[in-house]
C-alpha cells in the first residue's frame, strides 16, 4: 500500500528536525495511522532533548541538574563557558512581530538565543563581547525597548542580569532578572528598563513576608490601615519628597499657596500621625506607601 499523505508529512518532519530518513512498509490504513503516531512521538522526544530553546528554558527554571549542563549544551553546540547576559522582556502580548524584530536585531551568527518563558515574557540570552561592561547591557536594553516601541509599537518593560561566565549561572541570572522585572514594575513603574542591581528599597520590601508587612503598617497607621491614599494626597506628598521636603518649592510647583500646602500636610499628620516635614517621618511614610503598594499587588494576584 502507498504511504498516506499524513505519513509522508510526518516522515518529512522527522528528516527536517533530526536528519534521519526512515523507510516504512505498511499494509493497512491502521498501520499507517500507528506509524504516524510513533513518528510524531519521536519528533517530540527529539525536540525535548535537542531543542536549544527547551534546553535553556529548562535550565533557567532549574529543571536541569548541574552535572548535565555542559554535556547537553555541547550537544546543542552552545558553548557553556561563554560570557553572557540575560535580558527578560515583558509585553502585553508577545506576538510574531516582536519575535521577528528580536531575531533580526540579533541574527543567528550573534549566538543570541530567544527563549519564550510565558505568554507575555521572553528571555534573550546574549553573549558578551570582549570589553563589554554592564553599561553596554544598559545601552542594549534601551535599544531593545526603543526598537520594539518603534517597529512593533509594543509596550515593553525589560530587566537584565549581571554578566555571567558559565551556563551554570543561568538559573541565578534568571532569578535576578525575574525579581528585577517584578520589583521594577511594582515600585518604579515609570521606568521601562530595570537593571538587576538598581532595585533599592523595593528589593527589601518585596522579599518581606506579607504578615510582617501588615504588622508594620498596623504599627504605623494603627488598626485602621488605609487601603490606599487618594491621588491628590499622593501627588502632593510625592512632589514634596521630590523637592527634598522644601515647602516653598513644592507650593510653587503645585501652584498652591504655601499655607494651603502646610494645611494639607497637617491633614496627613492628623490622619496618619506622621509629620512628613520631619525627615524620619517622611522616610517612614515613603516606606509605608511602598509596602501598601506591595500588599495591594499581592492581593491582586
Amino acid at each position, binding site marked *: 500500500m502507498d504511504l498516506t499523505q499524513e505519513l509522508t508529512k510526518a516522515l518529512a518532519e522527522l528528516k527536517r528536525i533530526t536528519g534521519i530518513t526512515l523507510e516504512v512498509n505498511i499494509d493497512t490504513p491502521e498501520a499507517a495511522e500507528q506509524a504516524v503516531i510513533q513518528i510524531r512521538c519521536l519528533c517530540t522526544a527529539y525536540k525535548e532533548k535537542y531543542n536549544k530553546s527547551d534546553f535553556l528554558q529548562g535550565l533557567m527554571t532549574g529543571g536541569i541538574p548541574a552535572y548535565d549542563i555542559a554535556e547537553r549544551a555541547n550537544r546543542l553546540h552552545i558553548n557553556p563557558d561563554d560570557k553572557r547576559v540575560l535580558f527578560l522582556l515583558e509585553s502585553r502580548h508577545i506576538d510574531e512581530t516582536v519575535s521577528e524584530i528580536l531575531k533580526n536585531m540579533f541574527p543567528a551568527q550573534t549566538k543570541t538565543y530567544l527563549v519564550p518563558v510565558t505568554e507575555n515574557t521572553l528571555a534573550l540570552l546574549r553573549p558578551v563581547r570582549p570589553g563589554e561592561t554592564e553599561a553596554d547591557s544598559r545601552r542594549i536594553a534601551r535599544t531593545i525597548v526603543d526598537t520594539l516601541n*518603534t517597529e512593533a*509599537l509594543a509596550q515593553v518593560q525589560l530587566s537584565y542580569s549581571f554578566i555571567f561566565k558559565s551556563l551554570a549561572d543561568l538559573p541565578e541570572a534568571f532569578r535576578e532578572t525575574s525579581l528585577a522585572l517584578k520589583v521594577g514594575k511594582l515600585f518604579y513603574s515609570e521606568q521601562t528598563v530595570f537593571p538587576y542591581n538598581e532595585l533599592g528599597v523595593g528589593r527589601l520590601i518585596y522579599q518581606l513576608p506579607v504578615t510582617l508587612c501588615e504588622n508594620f503598617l498596623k504599627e504605623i497607621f494603627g488598626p485602621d490601615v488605609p487601603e490606599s491614599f487618594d491621588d491628590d494626597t499622593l501627588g502632593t506628598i510625592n512632589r514634596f519628597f521630590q523637592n527634598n521636603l522644601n515647602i516653598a518649592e513644592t507650593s*510653587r510647583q503645585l501652584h498652591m499657596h504655601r499655607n494651603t500646602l502646610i494645611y494639607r500636610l497637617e491633614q496627613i499628620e492628623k490622619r496618619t500621625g506622621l509629620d512628613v516635614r520631619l525627615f524620619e517621618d517622611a522616610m517612614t511614610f515613603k516606606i509605608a506607601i*511602598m509596602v501598601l503598594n506591595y500588599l495591594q499587588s499581592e492581593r491582586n494576584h
Partner: protein
Amino acid sequence: MASLSLQGIQKIYPNGFHAVKDFNLEIEDKEFIIFVGPSGCGKSTTLRMIAGLEDISGGTLKIDGKVMNDVEPKDRDIAMVFQNYALYPHMTVYDNMAFGLKLRKVPKDEIDKKVREAARILDLEKLLDRKPKALSGGQRQRVAMGRAIVRNPKVFLMDEPLSNLDAKLRVQMRIEISKLHENLGATIIYVTHDQTEAMTLGTRIVVMKDGVVQQVDTPQNLYNTPCNLFVAGFIGSPQMNFMDAVCNIKGNDVTLTVGEHVLKVPASKKKALIDGGYNGKTVVLGIRPEDVHDSEAFISNSPDSVITSTIKVYELLGAEVFLYFDVEGTQMTARVNPRTTLRTGDKAVFALDMEKIHVFDKDTELTITN
C-alpha cells in the same frame, strides 16, 4: 496628515508618581511642535501617551477629532523615531526600511514604491544596497527616519532622535529634519532637552517642567516674552542674567536698585510695576546678554542704566565675545562685539537696554512686565 488635541492629559503611575499634570494643547495639521524641558519634566511621557506606549491616566487625546485614549498604538497611524535606534545588521538599507512593512504583510510592489520614495526624500538612493556597518552615523540616522517615513503616518513622533550623534552631525541632521518637515508637510511632535534644537526646528514650542506646561508659544515669543523665570532661564544661550532688585516708585518714576546701581525703568515697563504695587518689594530683574552693552555711544545715551564691574573672564568666539563679570555677587554675561577692547581684569562700564529688561515676581516667579 493630522491635527491633535490633548485635553487635561494626566499621567499618574501605579507607584503614585505624577509625571504629567493637566496637559492641554491643540496641534494643527502640519505643525512642528517641540516639547522641551529638563530631564524628568514629563515630555517623553507625554509623547509616549500620544503613541499609546503609556496608558493615559486622565484627560482626552484626539487625533483628527477621534478619541484615541484606548486605541491600540498600531491603530493610531503614527510613526516614531527614538534616540536608541537599532538597524538590522545583516540587512541592506533597503531591507531595513522595508522590514516593518513586510511584517505588516504589505504587498511587495507597494513596499518597493514606498521605500524608493523615502530613499529619494532622504537622499539614500545610492546607499540602498549597503549594510549598516558601511554607513556613517548620519546616514544610519537617516535610515531610521526612513523606516518611519515608509509607514506614511498621520503623525511623526520623535524622541531625542539626535542625542546620540556628535555636535557637527547634530547640526547637519537638524537641517535635514527641517527640510523633511517641509517636504512631507507632516505633523511632527519632537522631544528634546536641547533648547537650540527647539528654537531652530519648532513652529511652536511647549516648555515643560516637573510635569507641568510652563508656556506654549513660537520660538520668537518664548525668547522675547517668557512667562516666568524658568522659561526665561531655559530659553537662550548663554542664559538670561538675573539679579535681585528693589523696586522704588515715586509718583510716575520707577527705579530698580541693584546694590549701588539705580536703574530707571522705561515707560513701557513701569505701569505693570505700579499697578502691581511693587513699591519697596524685591523683584528679579532679567536681561539677556546681548542687551548688556559696552559701546561708548550706547553708554552715553543711557546714563540711567549704567553698571560697573571688573571683567572676570574674556571669551572670544570669533563672531562675538562673551564677557563674564559680577554685579552684587551675581555672575553676569555680556555678549558684545569682538572689537571690544575690554579684557580680563579690566574695570568695565556697561549700560543695560532697559527697553529689553524682564521683571519677575520673586515669590511666584511669574513675569510682571511681559
